[in-house]
């Protein structure tokens, strides 16, 4: 199924994020404007320190911009309270990290259930949704295992299941293949594509691997020194 491009999922208007490190001012994100439509698969490409992860954190509501506005779901994230930002992260987005960030003492099912606990979903429904999410990433038979008993690819698939379980509108992925070999990385990218196709989800992925970005994303935004250098659709994108 070809994903449908819908209305704007997220819009950045002259967003900056500056830090002060001692006497040095660091412009991690500098005056970036970007509009991402619903159903798009945007790859944020850039070298280390280019500001792509900071930009992702700003869009994910983990950080606040120094200036500018980030519109998502009709609200400016820059103006939301801490509690409302937590609600945004809980209900509107899902996150996947390079290092998986699964809680080691919990089983896969318990890891995937975590966002549902935070959202205070009923226990009976939680079990159903966890089973569905694990089935989607084909790990339903490993539900009772702990992360340490799984391969890197399986751990990342679990992290994706955890990101999907709350049925978010946008999936943010920070270097999701960074800790995986190329074959496993491709399988994860295929899984993201399949999710995008079947659920019509918007995906924003940070990566420094151009070939991977060009192969799987529908749009490429290149960052450098905190600025958005280039932004455009990828020809022949899936």
């Amino acid at each position, binding site marked *: 199924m070809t994903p449908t491009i819908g209305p704007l999922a997220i819009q950045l208007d002259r967003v900056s994020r500056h830090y002060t490190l001692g006497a040095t001012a660091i412009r991690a994100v500098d005056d970036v404007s970007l509009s991402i439509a619903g159903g798009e698969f945007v790859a944020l490409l850039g070298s280390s320190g280019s500001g792509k992860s900071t930009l992702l954190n700003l869009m994910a509501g*983990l950080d606040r911009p120094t200036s500018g506005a980030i519109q998502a779901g009709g609200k400016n994230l820059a103006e939301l309270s801490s509690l409302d930002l937590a609600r945004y992260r*809980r209900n509107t987005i899902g996150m996947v990290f390079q290092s998986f960030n699964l*809680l080691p003492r919990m089983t896969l099912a318990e890891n995937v259930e975590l966002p549902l*606990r*935070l*959202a205070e979903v009923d226990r009976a429904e939680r079990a159903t949704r966890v089973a569905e999410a694990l089935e989607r990433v084909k790990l339903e038979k490993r539900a009772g295992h702990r992360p340490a008993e799984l391969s890197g690819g399986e751990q990342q698939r679990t992290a994706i299941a955890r990101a999907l379980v709350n049925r978010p509108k946008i999936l943010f992925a920070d270097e999701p293949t960074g800790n995986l070999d190329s074959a496993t990385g491709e399988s994860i990218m295929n899984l993201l594509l399949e999710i995008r196709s079947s659920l019509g989800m918007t995906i924003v992925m940070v990566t420094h691997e151009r070939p991977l970005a060009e192969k799987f994303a529908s749009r490429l935004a290149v960052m450098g020194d905190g600025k958005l250098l280039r932004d455009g659709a990828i020809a022949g994108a899936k």
Partner: protein
Amino acid sequence: MKLRDMAELAVRNLRESILRNSLTTLGVAVGVASLVAMLSLGVGLQQLASSRLTKSGLFDTVFVSPSPRLGVRGGAAAASSPPTPVRLLDEDARQEISKLPNVIEVFPQIRFPTEVRFDDKPFPTVVAGMPLSSKLSGAFDGMNGNFFSSESADEAILQIEFAKELSADTKSLVGKSLSIRYAERQQLEDGSGGFSIVPKDKKLHIIGIVETEPASGFGGFGNGRLLIPIGVAQSLRAAQVNDLRDVVRGGASKPTYASLTVRVKSTANVDEIEASVKKMGFGAFSLLDASKSLKIFFRVLDLLLGLFASLALAVATLGIVNTLVMAILERRREIGVLKALGAADGDIKRLFFVEAGVMGFAGGIAGVILGWLIGRALTLATNIYLKRQELPGVEISSVPLWLVLFGIGFAVVVSLVAGLYPASRAAKLDPVQALRYE
């Protein structure tokens, strides 16, 4: 996050560092144990003193004496007013007092000197008549032999020191007989109101030996070294000190009592009975005020014991703070993940609060059990010592339900207070920084 989910996560987190958290919980338990043990001693000693004093009848008793007026006395005003008849503390008065509401019993205090004949030897001593209710006074607990079978039984109980005078082997006295020689008052039949004193003998069966002299407060039978049932004492009509006063007053057609003891239903009724008796024209006295002072003393003692014991708990709270701060360092990344998944600052704060609370709750339960065991051990050691001193055992510690709930509740509250800083620190963690933490 719902409380149940929060509690599940908290317990899971605590299990993760089981040794460290167990040691912290043990610290709380030791603090609570010292608190519970100290307070249980305070409560136990208070109960021991109260029960002994209550049993002794000192605090639910009004002691009635004859009218303080012997004819007319007082200042000029009193001298000028017409003399009112002096009320006699006789059998009629006793019946009237016994009909007052909340009065259990009224019995006279009968004591008289006597000469005991035992093994053909004379032994001067004082006889005291005792009501059957005095069995509950605690003075007869653990006595050698038995208490009186009835108020009219010709039986005697010896005080141990007097028994030693009779025989070196005091236990062998039980079951034997003795006779007492006393002065019986016989009313003269010439209508003069006078009486004659006639020596009489009475044979009594020794049924028991009591360690301590039973006390009954003011004017009580504390001096009696040979105790007989009150019914028997009355039937003897032995001459007493007040008999002479009766003669001075102009002759008494019937005998009067030196004093009466009025037992009331509870200490709450003492004041009203005392007032009623005074209205009848008799003197009345009670030891209720001393009981109130005793309660204040034990309250202050409990407070001081609790304060000292709380120091141990205060030290334990530092352990909780330390454990939770360490947990924040170790679980920094986890906190970041939780925040990324949608946990609000409040969720993180509550999670650490619940962890502190769970440690406090577990430590509180363990501490109450430990404190109870310490109290039992102290009671056991005390009773071993008392037994060696040939004294009856006592219960010096008590852990009532309120102390159990207080111990656990206090541990939880103190733990939550200890969790305030770590919980607040965890909640304020920047999720981006936390996620970068290795």
